[in-house]
């Protein structure tokens, strides 16, 4: 194919070189500085200006050159043989020129009827984080990003509220046409645009995959005539943004003695271990990128190589990622263009258990990291009241340093992503596009558990032979190896027709078909015991010990899913001011039963550019006023599968010693189970005022998911005890979004901007059919306590609601914690009734979030600040709620608790009991954080130098936060599940503050 393309290319282009002359020139802006990236068209030939504004184009003298660039007014001039100088005037109404990606096409922003947030490339790379979605936090209204600074973690992105309880919550990412669910493999430096489709009329073109929103990412292409090389490098250090002050040894001893009503612990401790310090280090991270790009008339090319390395704040946790990308565009003929993109990502990581953070929080400071003889410290106390190897155990917390040191795991992954896109102009107004994209992922991992030595470290009073005696058949160690891979692909073919009739009727039609296949994910996991402790010998050739030492072997192939789709879109513009968009998508999904697999997803949008009306002509203060609105229907097909399986396992002897296999079916599947349907109506207003210095948008929406899938309890007489998913719930999301930005240029040397956005969303489970739900119990603390519930009683509450007891203060007479029961009486926790006394007390999902941004450019300096905040979320202090005996406490508690001498303390008396989940541990998750401060300086470099541009910068990420939460971080993504550990600080990675210095060079 490629040979064919090249020869074809050569044939097509040869005549053009033969016949033309070369016209050279320079494009300047009004200040006389060269303008890079301007587009020059001469008949059928086109070119771009380079970084200094120079261009050359094959055209005959006298041909009309049309020069255009976003943000400037287009000019047309006849070509001259002498070098030309063309000055572009900045256009006032930039919105008229901006283009947005709308899925299977682009649209001028002014002509678009839907709600789309476009994030520019520089905004994505400004905050030095790994995943682009983390970088856009606070930069788009209506988009909630809950991220974690754990290297390699995936942030949760919630667009206009969550509409599903059991289904997939991730938005659909479309990376250069590849539909995927994760963008951890994308180097942010390669991204040229990041667009978030927010309302149903924009999303419906993606049908059953659109209910959680769609993010379209476009990566860079080559431009400019000469080869340009760009190098971007930074290095930074990271530390926890906030620490929790724990009690020191003597305060710990005092508190614990009171709790135990004994004098177990000496109050003059020789050791005072700060466990958090012991398990953390100053994190470092670096990123280096180099890209080479350029273009000729027939080819645009872009290569980039990037490397990211992080030594995380948690001891031993390392992460690295190397990316390579090549995007080429071949102009095969006047009518035929081929785009090829390819990316390779290799990731490697040495993970460490995050429970080390919880153990560091809980472990007593009297325990040394190592005893004097070099053995790991353990929580045993001797008769002298000091930690000792042989004393009695006083808590069941391990040594977090030992935990990290013994944890030995490595993971590696490779992701290949790429595709081909062919555009063919059949006739001038009709274009055919064919696109194929694929994604291959492979992953491997090992985990080595040094079982015996871990036991010996936890029992310093025991020797090696004790292990064999106490556990005669136990393994010495356990090696787990895993491998996983999948291949997903999708292919689309569509036609785009665009024509203007009678000068005022602008019609664009798109129609196509598509298929997406999520190939079967294959996973192999093998666990072997008693392997050689030297990792070189883990895979000896022909080692027949394997057979006897394999403790588990799993070879899994997960179900493949396929999607077949038809889609169409009709866009109509009347007199440049009345806009209409209608879309329809018909999707068939292999996830569902034959009669329930096809669905239609219609949508429409209307727009009215009010400023183009006659009566607005005199209103000079308003530069743009556009009203838009729409309605659409979306689906979420990533819901619990309705595949029914045989149940094996009910085996039985039938009178002898032969165990007979038994099989039955113990599930009930509703054959009509299908996607969740979300309908949304929305209205928005875009405006630009005061010479377009003030720009903004206001949006309101009403989104309703009417057939949410929840697990129901089958009729008791069906004999089916497992929960049966059914379309029984209803979830509503209503909200509004505002964004405003003021840009101004005071002098040629000084310009500044101030911007912000605010989004509010009301999420509520509004209805439930007449069924009995099988409850979803979540937010478990690992000590028998759970914090969240979704069942029949949850109607009227937001998703992710905490369901716990209400703390009623402590009894002043004895310092015991009291709780309200259903009757409103204060009782102790033993008198509580789990069925009646718990209450819904708010959700882990914020109600509002907001972003602020300001900055200025002065001469060669640039400075910007971004802030982000949320309100209305609750967080549960899970690590604190785990203490029941002998664990450490926070200093604020150790110095102020109830005793007979301190009846008015702010904390209850010490106790030794697992505390029930209650509002005592529930705190406000509201926070405001400065996400990023950047100061950059562009070195004054002569334009004829080898280096054409050099900018150095310093960057502070998350330098400040104001939070009400007493723990490490109120931003707790956890497992990303509102019914999982989201919003619960337990085994959570802290938010980090990072300082970065970097440089960007262009050649």
């Amino acid at each position, binding site marked *: 194919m490629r040979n064919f393309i090249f020869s074809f290319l050569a044939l097509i282009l040869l005549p053009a070189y033969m016949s033309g002359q070369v016209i050279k020139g320079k494009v300047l802006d009004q200040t006389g500085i060269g303008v890079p990236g301007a587009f020059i068209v001469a008949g059928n030939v086109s070119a771009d200006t380079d970084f200094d504004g120079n261009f050359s184009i094959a055209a005959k003298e006298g041909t009309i050159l049309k020069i255009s660039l976003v943000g400037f007014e287009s000019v047309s001039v006849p070509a001259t043989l002498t070098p030309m100088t063309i000055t572009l005037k900045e256009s006032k109404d930039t919105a008229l020129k901006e283009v947005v990606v709308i899925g299977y096409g682009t649209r001028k922003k002014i002509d678009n009827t839907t709600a789309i947030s476009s994030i520019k490339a520089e905004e994505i790379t400004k905050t030095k984080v790994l995943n682009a979605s983390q970088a856009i936090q606070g930069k788009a209204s209506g988009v909630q990003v809950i991220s974690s600074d754990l290297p390699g973690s995936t942030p949760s992105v919630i667009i206009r509220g969550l509409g599903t309880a059991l289904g997939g919550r991730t938005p659909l990412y479309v990376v250069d046409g590849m539909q995927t669910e994760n963008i951890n493999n994308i180097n942010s430096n390669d991204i040229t645009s990041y667009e978030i489709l927010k309302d149903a009329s924009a999303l419906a073109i993606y049908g059953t995959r659109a209910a959680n929103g769609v993010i379209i990412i476009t990566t860079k292409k080559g431009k400019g005539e000469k080869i340009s090389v760009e190098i971007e490098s930074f290095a930074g250090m990271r530390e926890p943004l906030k620490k929790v002050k724990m009690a020191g040894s003597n305060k710990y001893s005092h508190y614990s003695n009171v709790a135990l009503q004994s004098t177990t612990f000496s109050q003059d401790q020789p050791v005072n271990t700060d466990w958090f310090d012991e398990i953390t280090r100053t994190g470092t991270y670096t990123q280096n990128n180099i890209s080479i790009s350029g273009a000729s008339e027939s080819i645009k090319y872009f290569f980039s190589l990037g490397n990211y390395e992080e030594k995380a704040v948690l001891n031993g946790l390392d992460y690295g990622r190397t990316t390579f990308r090549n995007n080429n565009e071949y102009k095969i003929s006047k009518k035929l263009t081929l785009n090829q993109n390819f990316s390779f990502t290799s990731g490697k990581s040495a993970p460490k258990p995050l429970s080390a953070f919880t153990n560091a929080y809980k472990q007593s400071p009297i325990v040394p990291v190592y005893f004097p003889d070099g053995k790991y410290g353990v929580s045993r106390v001797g008769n002298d009241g000091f930690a000792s190897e042989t004393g009695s155990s006083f808590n069941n917390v391990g040594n977090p340093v030992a935990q990290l040191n013994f944890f030995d795991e490595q993971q590696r992954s490779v992701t290949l992503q790429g595709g081909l896109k*062919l555009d*063919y102009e*059949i006739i001038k107004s009709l274009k*055919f596009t*064919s696109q194929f994209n694929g994604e291959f992922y492979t992953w491997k991992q090992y985990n080595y558990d040094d079982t015996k030595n871990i036991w010996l470290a936890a029992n310093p009073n025991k020797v090696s032979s004790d292990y064999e005696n106490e556990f005669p058949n136990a393994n010495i160690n356990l090696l787990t190896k895993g491998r996983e891979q999948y291949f997903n692909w999708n292919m689309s073919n569509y036609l785009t027709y665009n024509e203007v009739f009678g000068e005022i009727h602008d019609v664009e039609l798109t129609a196509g*078909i598509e*298929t997406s296949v999520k190939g*079967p994910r294959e996973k192999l996991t093998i666990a072997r015991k008693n392997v050689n402790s030297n990792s070189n010998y883990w895979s000896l050739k022909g080692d027949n010990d394997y057979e006897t030492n394999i403790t588990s072997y799993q070879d*899994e*192939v*997960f*179900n*493949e*899913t*396929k999607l*077949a789709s*038809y889609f169409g879109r009709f866009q109509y513009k009347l007199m440049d001011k009345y806009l209409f968009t209608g879309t329809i998508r018909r999707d*068939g*999904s*292999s996830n569902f039963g*034959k009669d329930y*697999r096809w669905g239609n997803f219609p949508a429409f949008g209307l727009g009215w550019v009010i400023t183009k009306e006659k009566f607005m002509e005199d209103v000079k203060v308003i530069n743009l006023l556009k009203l838009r609105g729409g309605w659409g229907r979306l689906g979420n097909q990533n819901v619990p599968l309705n*595949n*029914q*399986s*045989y*149940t094996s396992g*009910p*085996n*039985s*002897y*039938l*009178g*002898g*010693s032969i*165990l*007979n*296999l*038994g*099989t*039955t*079916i*113990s599930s*009930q*599947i*509703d*054959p*009509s189970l299908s996607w969740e349907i979300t309908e949304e109506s929305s209205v928005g207003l875009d405006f630009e005022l005061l010479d377009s210095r003030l720009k903004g948008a206001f949006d309101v929406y009403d989104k309703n998911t009417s057939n949410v899938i929840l697990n129901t*309890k089958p*009729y*008791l*007489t*069906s*004999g*089916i*005890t497992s929960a*049966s998913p*059914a379309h029984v719930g209803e979830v509503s999301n209503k909200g509004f979004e505002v964004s405003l930005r003021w840009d101004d240029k005071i002098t040629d040397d000084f310009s500044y901007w101030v911007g912000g956005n605010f989004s509010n969303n009301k999420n509520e489970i509004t209805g439930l059919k*007449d069924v*009995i739900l099988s409850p979803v119990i979540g937010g478990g603390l690992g000590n028998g306590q759970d914090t969240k519930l979704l069942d029949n009683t949850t109607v009227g509450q937001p998703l992710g609601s905490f369901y716990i007891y209400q703390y009623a203060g402590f009894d002043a007479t004895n310092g015991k914690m009291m709780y309200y029961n259903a009757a409103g009486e204060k009782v102790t926790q033993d008198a509580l009734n789990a069925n009646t006394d718990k209450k819904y007390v708010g959700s882990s999902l914020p109600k509002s979030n907001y972003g602020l941004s300001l900055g200025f450019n002065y001469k060669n300096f640039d400075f910007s600040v971004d802030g982000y905040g949320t309100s209305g979320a609750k967080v549960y202090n899970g690590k604190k709620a785990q203490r029941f005996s002998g664990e450490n406490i926070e200093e604020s508690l150790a110095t102020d608790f109830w005793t007979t001498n301190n009846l008015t303390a702010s904390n209850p008396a010490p106790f030794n009991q697992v505390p029930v989940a209650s509002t005592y541990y529930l705190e406000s998750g509201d926070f405001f954080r400065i996400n990023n401060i950047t100061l950059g300086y562009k070195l004054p470099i002569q334009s004829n130098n080898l280096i054409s541009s050099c900018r150095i910068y310093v960057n502070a990420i998350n330098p400040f936060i104001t939070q009400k939460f007493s723990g490490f971080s109120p931003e707790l993504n956890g497992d990303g599940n509102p019914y999982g550990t989201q919003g619960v600080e337990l085994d959570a990675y802290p938010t980090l503050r990072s300082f970065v210095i970097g440089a960007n060079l262009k050649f």
Partner: protein
Amino acid sequence: MKKIYIATFVFSTFFFAGCADDYLDVDQTESISTKDTELYNNDAGAAQFVTAIYNKFLNWDMTSFGWIGLSSITSDDADKGSSPGDTGTDKDVLDALTYNASNPSAESTFIANYDGINRCNQALNIIPKLDKADPNLRARLIGEAKFLRAFMYFTLVKCYGGVPIVDHLPVPGNDSDRIMQLTRKTSAEVYTFIEADLNDAIAALPEKTAYSVNERSRASKGAAYALLAKVSLYQKNWQKVIDNCNKITGYSIVSDYASMFRAAGKFDSESIFEIYAQGAAPAKGIEGYSNTQGARGTGGWGWGFNSPSQSLVNAYEPGDVRKAATIIFRGSTLYDGRVVPNTVENERYNYKAYSSAYTDAWETDVDIKYLRYAEVLLMKAEALNELGQTSNAIPLLNQIRNRAGLANTTFSSQVDIRNAIWRERRVEMAFEHDRFFDLVRTGQAKTAFAVDGKVFTVGKNELFPIPATFIKQAGGLSQQNPGY
């Protein structure tokens, strides 16, 4: 070029329109789809669906703690046992007959039996489709499934009265199936359904002797007759009791009563239908059955529930060997030499749940003999007596008494013999999950419980409450039992 692309486009449109639906038929790979019946289309495959039903009887909810509570602790034969403070969830209120509508044991037993019925219905649904399996085997398996379904409906009708009859696999969303699952039938309708299943089973099942050593716990023709006799007994269909008892051939009572409840007595000549358990690894026994009833405290091996009552001790006539075979007394030495020390918490424990080889294991080798030939004799005696043939009933009763080391009965009138048979049933079948239902069946409950110092409310305590969740699901189609 242009033509090629247009052709491709048009072609692919056809492709989608024409076979998109087949294109979307993706076979499951992560588990075996229930659409794939072919995998089980052979003798062994067909048998698996019935094995799963037998497996249900080993389940905790089906046969263990809750069921012990309902069928035994409630009766005058047993007290709750265990430590005074350990309620065993609800065993205290079961013992005191003060349970309410949300009784966990009543709920779990209801759910477990319907779970078993689902397994029967799954087997009855799929086995006829497995045409590559031996037709004779399939017919027998269907017979077994029907017997087992009848057995479970009998448990349900005894416990709860009329219940919904789920006679086929319901289709979710189908309205008539919804009504079927949610509407209680009358007891008479349930009995008719049970009899129909048993008659089908009788036609399909072989005699017990036809089974190999490894299949002795399968349902047999004799078991179906015996259950039909018992079902008739509950309906006071005396002639039918006699007719069915007469068809039970090839069984005899064993000479040593105590031997029946030990490992050596499995499938003896008296056993008609028993739940078979194996304690040797991989163990498949009745979950927690021995453990929950084992002696509690220092020197004990279990939780100590279902303790034989003083009332039961008093019911044995002097010289009755069954007392020592049924009750473990604190401080005694068991048949295997184990000494039950005086440090255990309760005076008496259930000997019939004791496993010598796997004493404190969760799954032991203790079987439950649900149908014994001794009961057949007693049922026949009762029916004969009710039909006025008292003199024919007396020798049957004496057979049972003599085996227990007791002399012939001295009674002779119909009324006295009736009472004598009822008394004999109690001591013969103590701790075999029959007493409570027998008291209700014979109308002795109120007086019997009064002796025990408990109030049996006539019109209420005959039946257990239907689970509240079910009443809620039924949304008016079914009502709770009276008094709850």
